[in-house]
């Protein structure tokens, strides 16, 4: 596997964190003594709790849901008793959100029901089963899968994203190696829900690297595309033009150009949900720390990072914060109680000896590195200047809305400027322009 990803402008992303990780099989982490289960596990509104304090819940039982089209049910990952509802820092937003604290009394997971052939189900029935199982995008964004499937029915192409671009994550490739049949069955389910479009699987592997998976794809006539080693192409906005040569319009989504993109982990979860009626209770992720290296883990949703450390036999005191998700895009949270959510692709443990590289940034020297590397071809340097003076007209002229917050501008910046905060602030300003408050 290439250990440096080539980006625009001749820059590279160091992916040596992944070295040897693809060879490490998933290890099943036992259920935590207390699971911390957020009422919101995805990109969308939080669900209402359906249980009360002191109530006993079964593993796989629905414990939260909502009426919003973008709400997704949440299921208990363990059998036990609800101890409390608490505010905990959410690893997707970096803000405090409500979570159910469940004491584990039985680790057993629900058994699969009798296998259902997805061909016997209508697309509507498949979408309903996907929603009922609480499946969301497992590539990191966590968009509700049922909503994506519903909105994109009739698309001509389904791209399965197995690109796994983040430099600290290797769980998708492990999934393709360890559970290829289940993944392909999941792809079939998604394709059926969309009216059987052309299926294209995009990976960063070379031909012949995943023989069983490749064979299963061939049997079904699915196309396998080997993508160049590049971090930014992992974003669906850039993966679509890379695979099909057509751009997703600014302000639009892949279905606007007849494409739907799903992560390979999502396909696996959808297959389990529709074929076996299994709710999404656990997922694969990659834990990485400088001293101990990387491990691929199969972890229940709601497992606090502290429990993962105890399982791995790593001393908690060595770390002072943990990055949830991508090392380039995720939040770093200084709390051992923050749990894995459905969208957590990886965790990076950072010690006090590894402070943020951006803590002492220098003034922008306008070297243009950020502009050269930007995969969506905007000008972070000019946006930075416009954002600092709250110049909304300039932010719009500079096409800030196209920013995918990939973090590459900061990654290459010789002055170590943390662009992300400025870019997000600018995007908020643009949103305010679009939707003025009722008073105005």
């Amino acid at each position, binding site marked *: 596997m290439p250990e440096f990803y080539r980006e625009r*402008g*001749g*820059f*590279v992303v*160091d992916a040596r964190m992944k070295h040897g990780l693809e060879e490490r099989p998933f290890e099943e982490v036992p259920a935590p003594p207390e699971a911390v289960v957020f009422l919101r596990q995805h990109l969308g509104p939080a669900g209402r709790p359906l249980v009360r304090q002191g109530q006993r819940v079964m593993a796989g039982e629905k414990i939260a849901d909502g009426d919003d089209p973008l709400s997704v049910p949440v299921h208990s990952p363990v059998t036990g008793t609800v101890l409390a509802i608490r505010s*905990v*820092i959410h690893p997707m937003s*970096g803000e405090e959100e409500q979570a159910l604290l469940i004491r584990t009394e039985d680790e057993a997971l629900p058994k699969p029901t009798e296998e259902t052939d997805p061909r016997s189900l209508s697309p509507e029935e498949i979408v309903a089963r996907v929603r009922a199982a609480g499946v969301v995008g497992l590539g990191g964004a966590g968009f509700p899968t049922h909503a994506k499937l519903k909105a994109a029915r009739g698309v001509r192409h389904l791209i399965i994203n197995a690109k796994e671009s983040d430099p600290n994550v290797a769980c998708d490739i492990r999934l393709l190696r360890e559970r290829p049949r289940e993944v392909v069955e999941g792809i079939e389910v998604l394709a059926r829900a969309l009216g059987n479009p052309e299926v294209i699987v995009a990976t960063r592997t070379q031909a012949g690297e995943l023989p069983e998976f490749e064979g299963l794809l061939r049997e079904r006539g699915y196309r396998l595309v080997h993508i160049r080693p590049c971090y930014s192409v992992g974003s669906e*906005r*850039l993966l679509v033009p890379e695979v099909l040569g057509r*751009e*997703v*319009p*600014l*302000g*639009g989504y892949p279905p*606007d*150009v007849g494409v739907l993109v799903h992560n390979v982990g999502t396909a696996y979860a959808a297959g389990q949900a529709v074929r076996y009626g299994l709710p999404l209770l656990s997922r694969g992720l990659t834990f990485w720390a400088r001293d101990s290296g990387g491990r691929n883990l199969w972890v229940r949703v709601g497992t606090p990072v502290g429990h993962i450390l105890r399982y791995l036999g790593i001393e908690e*005191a060595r*770390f*002072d*914060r943990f*990055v949830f*998700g*991508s*090392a*380039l*895009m*995720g*939040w*770093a949270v*200084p*709390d*051992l109680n923050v749990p894995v959510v459905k969208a957590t692709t990886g965790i*990076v443990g950072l010690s006090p000896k590894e402070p*943020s*590289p*951006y803590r002492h940034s*220098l*003034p922008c*020297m*306008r*070297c*243009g*590195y950020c502009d*050269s590397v930007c*995969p*969506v*071809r905007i*000008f972070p340097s*000019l946006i930075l200047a416009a954002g600092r003076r709250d110049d909304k007209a300039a932010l719009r002229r*500079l*096409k800030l809305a196209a920013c995918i917050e990939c973090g590459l501008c*900061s*990654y*290459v910046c*010789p*002055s*170590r400027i943390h662009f*992300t905060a400025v870019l997000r602030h600018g995007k908020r300003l643009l949103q305010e322009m679009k939707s003025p408050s009722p008073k105005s």
Partner: protein
Amino acid sequence: MARSVGAGLEPGPHIHAGFTKDRLMRGTLLFMAPLAALGVAAIGWKVLAHLAIALSTAAAFHFALVLGERRLRGQVLHPSWLSSLVAGAIVALSVLAVTPYAVTFAITALAIVLKFVQGWVFERKYLNPAATAKVLLLGGMTALAGMEEGLMYHPHHLWLDMVSSEGFRAALDWMYADGPFSPGLNLFLWKTHAWIGGVSGLATLLLGAAACWVLRLKWRIPLAFLGGMALLSVILAGATGGDPLLRLAFHMFTGSVIFLAFFMATEPQSTPMTELGQYLFGALLACLTFLLQLRGVLGGSVIALVALDFLTPVLDRVGIRRAVGEKGRVRA
């Protein structure tokens, strides 16, 4: 471990490529070092004196200003002393060896002051500090002491006929006769009377191009600048007759053009960010420099550079490229 909820949250990214401003400055110094060595070989020990004066002045003024900044502002905006050393090296390599040492000292000191003051006032540099210091100081000296002593340009150069082929040939024979080759080849390979950083046009071209590649400098500016100079030379040679190669050698490879193209015109803060802006900057720089050269202001590129720096905020608005997805933009 800090366990207080909500404290110390950090958004991504959490990793960095490792290429810092100091490494960029160190790289720039490394690429200029062979030019300094060539200067010593071609011109002599005076070059070492200019370098020593400029580098030590830059370091001394840097530390003095940092100290003052820390006392008065409580924080240091420009902690990179390597950046000041680069400014000092550029000053040393952009003077003639015959320049009085006091002038090298004064230009360097003013350059470092301009570098800091622009940062404090504007939070960025709008004007190239080394070029502006040179123009201000020599311009001021010329205004006060007259042309001969002012060193802004040499008044006897003003009477040279740089337009007609005969006058141009005679001027070059007079200026570049000293050297191992013919005037054209001397300009290209080995000058003994030039900006120190440009004694060998070929070496500066190769090292400058390598610096652009390795350090990712704004390469479109030297490309458009030198391309523009080449084009104008060929046009003028065609219009007036004479040897086009000699025109090219002079207009592209005088020390003030070739050194400035790579090591001054690519100064990041005072130059445009967009690709088109950089091409325009280089092309306009070529036009202005060419005109000044024809008027006998042979080191006029530095004046042209300062003039063009004023245009940078305008050029930053030109050539905002199409973002991915913009072609099929969904209208709100």
